[in-house]
């Protein structure tokens, strides 16, 4: 849980001070806890865990259910067509990937907390899911692209402008047809609010891609 250089230094200090095993373990644990606590003094982990993971996982489960119902309608009845489901599925993938990417890139060190923040609503909804015709697993359609996005977010940090802006535009354009489902007007506040909540990570990535890249962090111990 400590970086390689830090581990080297701390173990050396403990050996030099002649600390016993238990005291050394407590010292290392204390350092890890302090370091983890320090990260939470900044806004990034809060945005990732509370501002993104929790609301997006709730809303993406709703979108997953909507896509699953669309697919079910295609197989069960002839009322639905692929033309309505494919944009929804693409939008779900886009929302999930960009949301995951934003979570991963906003706060890499607290990704595990963001993951727990995403899983808690999932467990809550799965435990209360009572639709017999659809498997509860359908709620989790968003998880695979979201995990993929989070992994890319941690690894890459930011995407290039040539990819980020078309991606944000595509997600936004795909949002409009879904706002008109069942003839509801696009200004219907809840649907509009849901779309905005799920679309802003794509625009956040686009905005980040236009910023000048910073110098790499040359400090031994990354705090981000």
């Amino acid at each position, binding site marked *: 849980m400590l970086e390689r*250089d*830090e581990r*080297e*230094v*701390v*173990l*050396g*200090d*403990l*050996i*030099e*001070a002649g600390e016993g095993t238990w005291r050394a373990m407590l*010292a*290392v644990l*204390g*350092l*890890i*806890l*302090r*370091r983890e606590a*320090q990260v939470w003094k900044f806004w990034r982990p809060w945005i990732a865990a509370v501002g993104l993971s929790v609301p997006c996982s709730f809303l993406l489960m709703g979108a997953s259910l909507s896509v699953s119902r669309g697919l079910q309608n295609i197989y069960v009845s002839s009322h639905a067509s692929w033309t309505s489901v494919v944009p929804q599925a693409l939008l779900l993938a886009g929302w999930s990937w960009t949301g995951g990417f934003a979570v991963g890139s906003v706060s890499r060190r607290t990704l595990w907390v963001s993951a727990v923040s995403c899983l808690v609503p999932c467990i809550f909804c799965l435990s209360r899911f009572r639709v017999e015709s659809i498997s509860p697993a359908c709620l989790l359609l968003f998880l695979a692209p979201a995990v993929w996005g989070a992994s890319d977010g941690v690894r890459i940090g930011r995407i290039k402008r040539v990819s980020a802006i078309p991606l944000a535009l595509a997600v936004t354009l795909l949002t409009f047809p879904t706002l008109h489902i069942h003839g509801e007007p696009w200004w219907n506040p809840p649907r509009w609010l849901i779309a905005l909540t799920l679309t802003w990570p794509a625009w956040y990535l686009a905005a980040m891609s236009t910023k000048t890249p910073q110098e790499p962090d040359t*400090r*031994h*111990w990354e*705090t981000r």
Partner: protein
Amino acid sequence: MLGEFEYLIVTSAAGLGDKAYGAAIREAIVVATGRNCSIGALYTTIERLEAKGLLTSRMGEATPQRGGRSKRMVRVTGAGVRAAKEFYDAVTRISRGAAWAAD
């Protein structure tokens, strides 16, 4: 202005000069204050002081006393010296007239 523990670290590091590293600073603080100094508090504070530009640190050489492990060498910057002086002056000024300061 510096905090009390920050002042202890900056002053210990300045006193140790080229030999300032984690374990030596920790030892100096324990001897001077008679209080325990946890490694967690030490390194998180050193990191904070580095972020404020009051200290710089680099990886140093490994010694047999440390099981062949490297040291983290610490150096006080000009801003660190000024901040420590400011803290010292403030404590000296506020202590004037205090019963314990007359000794």
